[in-house]
């Protein structure tokens, strides 16, 4: 039961990375690929109908974590108080810039919100990357799972490397999504971005993988996920002429396999301890709700998520198709 709960959390967070990942990725590359106002607007409209639903994966994930693992929710959110609040502010900046940008037809207004959009999205990716890196590396925790370290502890070279990798991987993902969603010159520029970012991601992938072996013991399952992720990354290059949807699909698979590797590395811990710290970390067995509460929460969450997947797919298919960029 606790394992099933862990899998549900991993799945919803992976869904968040795949879905909101392309919103963040498009934001990160938009200033570089969109050459004029029409293209910037098209980039926004490419993610416009979807970003809010994508962000809900994070909100719902937080709620599900709260219900399934209340102690992990309490310890992680309060232990990393300031970074979490900053993430909230960045999420606010990202959301508000997307929503308000087109409510007032004025060039300076749009430029201002475009800048907020870019900065908050890019910083969000960096924060998420640092968080992920520290999770893999382990954290100094007390017996209750509360964080004992300092802010400076979080800014270590490994976490920063993961953050840079996350930025690269999501930029690639965003470019693949943009190519899928727009036509014209912007489409060509997005495809070029995929080709240009790819080698950077490859180098970062190798660096992060090697560094991870020195940071944390890596199990066979995680290695298998890593190998598959590497294969997906190579396929992305080898199949460069494949349909846009296939490229985006492979990029999604690459991210999902990475997340699988992370989950396999963490398991069975939600908050693993840094080797030198006193506690062993907060595992899915220490942090969970009672078995009866888990059954109840898992039942309603899984049923709801399946329903969301069904109607979400239907609505998104109806909204699919190219955003036309007026030239």
């Amino acid at each position, binding site marked *: 039961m606790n394992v099933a709960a862990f899998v549900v959390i991993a799945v919803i967070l992976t869904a968040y990375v795949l879905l909101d990942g392309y919103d963040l990725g498009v934001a990160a590359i938009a200033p570089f690929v969109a050459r004029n106002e029409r293209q910037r607007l098209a980039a926004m409209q490419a993610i416009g*109908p979807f970003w809010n639903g994508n962000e809900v994966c994070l909100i719902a994930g937080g709620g599900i974590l709260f219900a399934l693992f209340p102690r992990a929710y309490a310890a992680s959110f309060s232990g990393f108080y300031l970074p979490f609040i900053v993430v909230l502010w960045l999420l606010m900046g990202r959301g508000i810039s997307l929503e308000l940008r087109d409510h007032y037809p004025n060039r300076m207004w749009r430029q201002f919100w475009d800048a907020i959009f870019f900065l908050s999205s890019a910083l969000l990716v960096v924060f998420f990357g640092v968080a992920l890196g520290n999770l893999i590396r382990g954290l100094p925790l007390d017996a209750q799972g509360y964080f004992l370290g300092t802010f400076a502890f979080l800014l270590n070279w490994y976490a920063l490397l993961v953050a840079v990798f996350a930025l690269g991987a999501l930029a690639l993902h965003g470019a693949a999504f943009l190519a899928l969603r727009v036509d014209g010159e912007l489409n060509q520029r997005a495809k070029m971005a995929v080709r240009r970012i790819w080698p950077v991601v490859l180098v970062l992938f190798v660096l992060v993988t090697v560094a991870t072996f020195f940071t944390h013991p890596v199990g066979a399952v995680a290695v298998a996920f890593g190998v598959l992720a590497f294969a997906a990354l190579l396929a992305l290059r080898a199949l460069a002429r494949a349909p846009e949807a296939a490229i985006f699909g492979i990029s999604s698979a690459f991210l999902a396999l990475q997340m699988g590797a992370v989950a396999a590395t963490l398991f069975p811990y939600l908050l693993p301890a840094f080797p030198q710290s006193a506690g062993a970390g907060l595992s899915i067995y220490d942090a969970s709700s009672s078995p*009866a509460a888990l059954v109840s929460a898992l039942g309603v969450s899984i049923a709801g998520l399946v329903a969301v997947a069904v109607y979400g797919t239907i*609505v998104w298919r109806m909204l699919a198709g190219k955003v036309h960029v007026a030239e």
Partner: protein
Amino acid sequence: MDVVLADRLQFAFTIMFHYLFPITTMGLAPFVAWFTVRAYRTQDEERARAAAFWTKIFTINFAIGVVTGIPMEFQFGTNWAAFSAKAGAVVGQPLAMEGVYAFFLESIFLGALFYNRGRIPNKLQAVAGVMVWLGSWLSGFFIVATDAWMQHPVGYVVASDGSLQMGNLAAVLLSPFAWWQYTHVLAGALVTGGFVVAGVGAYYLLAGREEAIARRFVHLGTIVAIVFSMLVIFPTGDGNSKNVTQYQPVKLAAMEGLFESTKGAPLAIIGMPDLQNKSLIDPVFVPNILSFLAYGNFDANVKGLSAYATELWPPVELTYYAYHVMVGLGTIFVTIAAVAALLLWRKRLFQTRWMLWLMMLAMPFPYIANEAGWTTTEVGRQPWIVYGLMKTASAASPTVVTGETIFTLIGFVGMYFILGVLFIYLVLREIGIGPSGEAQVREGSVEAVS
């Protein structure tokens, strides 16, 4: 400053600002759905303009509601870790359900409602309008169910480590306490929606613009306002009071400013609570009415504050004033809506300028009444965070210090000030453009058609 007080100030500030927007989205969602579905059914241009106009207002509210709502859920973990660790297995569940069942519905279909909008809504948009309505009301339900559990905990089990575990989800979701609170909250939101739609229509009539469409707004808004300003008092307000009487009698005593237990207790219409002398200053009483409202019996004994230890009292002044502001405004709303409905029935409303002025200027007050109602509920719950089970004083995060909370509170105040200014500016701008002005502005702007 004590860290718990700093945490409470932060929660109070962020929730009170946030709640302004869900009131509006819950109150406007049925109007958006109604105009969208009617426009799709009749293929009528004017209704389509009404739908597009209210969808825009709704979207601005929704956007600010979403961005200010995210900190609410996460504050349970950041600022109230002890509470989350103890009660998360119960309260986490309705919150998770809000995400899974309501937020996805609302946000996915809002994407469909707002994008690819032609002149006349298509079938997807008609469906989306109804789904967004459903989503916003479901979201409200799960939040109110969470709060109602904190007011009157049911369906839980105490585990061996002292934590509270979910025993029976159905009992939590179907708790009568939750349903009276939820219907009351919905009625309050619909009063707001009715007053806003009628008020905007009244503005257009007074300004001599958009007259045909403005009459629709005033007409529909007035009907919703009169129906729900009555329902907000009876049965929903009454049902809530009966629950408070039964389960939170000390809150009732604070709300009513009743210091001594009294047989045939009078209702204080006005008066100022004086904690030194344990009495109301300059009260205006209606004899025996409080006993009747609480117990349905004019001579029933109502327990006063002095029947309880002082440390179990909520902050009396704030609870008392918030409650009286809500009830006073509620009474005024019924009066305004009744006069408007009468004039509408006599077919004189659209020409009665003083009434249109009154309706336009009444718009902010339902917001105040809603906020005052929640203040009564939440401040009146003190000193408990989970009524009878956990004190607010022991609920804060053990690792977070006052300085951090003050810093982030100042950050939130700054950001929300900017959001508030932007919101008012954008909404006033949309109202200025108006339902039929929209087309010209849109064509004039740089727009890629998707």
